[in-house]
């Protein structure tokens, strides 16, 4: 889910950036450092929407660097346990399938796929019901529920299920 959140960060600036454009340099450094990163607490920082406040700079002892505390608003994307969202399937194998929702990767294990869906290997591996009416393959859109998340330095990885009511394939790329 997307959130609009105010975060704070201490930015260190080298003296060569001081001068008339100090604030612009600070903001562009902030954008370079923060946009695209990911943390466990807030999720992916997708974009910075504004700077709320730049505090007074503090010169670091021994070096000429100055630390500025910056408060900024940003849009973050963080998946939550229990959240229902729609993802696009990227890979199917006999252990389950991988899907992507925005910058987040989700894995749905075959244990969390309804029992009446069987794995079919081949050029386009897929999961199909016994009567062939529903198929999950690459580029299918599925609605799934997140049941667990893991964060590492650069990305968030989730486990999902489609075994509940109203979950599963939304549209089939072959029939669309």
């Amino acid at each position, binding site marked *: 889910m997307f959130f609009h959140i105010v975060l704070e960060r201490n930015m260190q600036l080298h003296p060569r950036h001081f001068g008339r454009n100090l604030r612009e340099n600070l903001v562009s450094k902030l954008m370079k450092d923060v946009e695209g990163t990911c943390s466990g607490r807030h999720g992916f920082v997708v974009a910075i929407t504004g700077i709320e406040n730049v505090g007074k700079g503090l010169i670091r002892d021994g070096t000429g660097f100055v630390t500025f505390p910056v408060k900024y608003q940003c849009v973050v994307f963080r998946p*939550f346990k229990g959240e229902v969202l729609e993802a696009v399937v990227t890979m199917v194998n006999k252990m389950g399938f991988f899907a992507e929702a925005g910058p987040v990767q989700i894995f749905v294990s075959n244990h969390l796929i309804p029992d009446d869906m069987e794995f079919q290997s081949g050029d386009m591996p897929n999961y199909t019901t016994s009567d062939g009416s529903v198929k999950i393959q690459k580029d299918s859109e599925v609605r799934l529920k997140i049941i*667990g998340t893991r964060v590492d330095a650069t990305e968030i990885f989730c486990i999902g299920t489609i075994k509940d009511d109203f979950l599963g394939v939304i549209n089939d790329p072959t029939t669309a």
Partner: protein
Amino acid sequence: MSEKGGKGFSLPTKTTPKSALKSTPASATARHDDNSAKSKRGRKVQFGMEGLPNLGFNFSSPKSDGKFAIPVGKGDWAKGGKGEKVVNGGKAPVAKEAKSLELRVEQELPENVKCLMDCEAANILEGIQEQMVMLSQDSTIKLPESFHLGLQYAKTRSYYTNPQSVRRVLEALSKYGVSYSEICVIANTCPETVDEVFALVRSLEAKKSRLSEPLKDVLDELGKLKKST
């Protein structure tokens, strides 16, 4: 412990009536081989999945176990007992599982956080992208990949023409005790029936009797606001 493991399913509390896994012992051994192959890839995966005891699915770090323990198959119970999150009863895990799968956004995030619906997020991100086109003289500022993925995702998920009217319609629900994050989930998933809402947002089931009527009205209103594709 190993004797218990040897008996397989003779432990009465461990037979899960829900039986999410209807696997036979033959297929279990096949899966067991797959799992050991997978664990050899050395993927260190550790998930917060305390709400899933019925599946007996333990993603354990290779340090302790290295294998995916499944409650089918005789030898696995011994390994399952190594202090990991295992099925420990009949009824208690079922209630626990339902609870832990509820959306608990408000508890986990600080208070000044505002949930955004996908359509609102799409508007904001599109605005930023337009600004970046103007600022692109500075080639060192490049939008990260997660921005493009996020924007694409938000655009494909925005079904409504006007986010403000959606917000107003859904705000009617907040006086019934529906939290902001639950409102966002309802908006994002675009449900068509009241049953769908209760199935997708389990935390609302407690207020089912109070919410059914207002929800029906809200869903009708949302239907009118949907973009015609």
